[in-house]
């Protein structure tokens, strides 16, 4: 397995200017981890969840505002708070 790539999976065909993208990677000791990332809204309510890619990456199409990312991997759960803006990539590197 090669190392984790920065940023999220491929974006071909998506109108990025109209999206509010939160993306990043989940790694342990610099190596990608297979698991899940949940997106929770400002009240802590579940909004979405994706499995990480083979290179540990994830991406959400959210709305502007405050969000919490929760990485779920075998044996660990890690939360990270983020603020997202339309037309921008909010990059989050999560280490577990």
């Amino acid at each position, binding site marked *: 397995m090669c190392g984790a790539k920065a940023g999220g999976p491929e974006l071909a065909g998506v109108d990025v200017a109209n999206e509010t993208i939160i993306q990043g990677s989940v790694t342990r000791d610099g190596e990608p981890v297979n698991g899940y990332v949940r997106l929770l809204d400002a009240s802590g309510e579940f*909004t979405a969840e994706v*499995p990480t890619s083979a290179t540990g990456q994830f991406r959400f199409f959210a709305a502007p505002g405050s969000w919490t990312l929760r990485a779920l991997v075998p044996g660990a759960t890690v939360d990270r708070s983020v603020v997202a803006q339309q037309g921008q990539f909010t990059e989050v590197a999560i280490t577990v």
Partner: protein
Amino acid sequence: MSRSDVLVSADWVQDHLDDPKVVVVEVDEDTAAYDKNHIRNAVRIDWKKDLQDPVRRDFVDQAGFEALLSAKGIANDDTVVLYGGNNNWFASYAFWYFKLYGHGDVKLLDGGRKKWELDSRELVDGANVPNRAATEYKAQAQDTSIRAFRDDVVAAIGSKNLVDVRSPDEFSGRLLAPAHLPQEQSQRPGHVPTARNIPWSKNANDDGTFKSDDELRDLYQAENVDLSKDTIAYCRIGERSALTWFVLHQLLGQTNVKNYDGSWTEYGSLVGVPIELGSN
């Protein structure tokens, strides 16, 4: 109907992987997940290609469902155990199909693929596909007591329970689709007036397993859903609401609950129907 009839643990599935009368079936939103890896001896049903009519927006018909299950090697007296990613959204949707067409013994793997993975249980390579002999499956006519149509939803406004199981941001009109999908859609945002927003995720723990019957009953009571009244659950395309339908109809035994598979992509595109914006 009770929890043990329709929900099995990962340990139970592990113990039945070589039972020829138990068919484990993977149904994923990401239909390629099976190609990467899957539970040993599991077959795949593709919710888009296998379960939808290729032209009209509707399900495969009774004959189509019979042909599908026959080709997959599933017999009428087999125990079917469904599992999938995304906390069993599409596995629940397939469960509802199996009930719609009258399959006798169908169950969900509690927690689905995620729980299986978080337990670090064995998954075999995608090329490792079981060889099941074809059957002659016979389906029953659709049981429309569990399926709601758009006119049922409009008629239910203000009189029956409408449970919108989407995320609060989709309910209020801030998002048009779940946040792991691009948002480019043309229909109107919002929700059916008088619907209660009880996101599907409140039914499940972080690992994707269902909450206990007592916790589930408390949830709907706290949200002021009078389960003695008829209930219609909906979401965006009917898969997350199939999960809530599973909770209410199968786990809590409420037989007066329907899933509206047209859901917001249909309702939010109808001309002239009432729509409400904002949160509960």
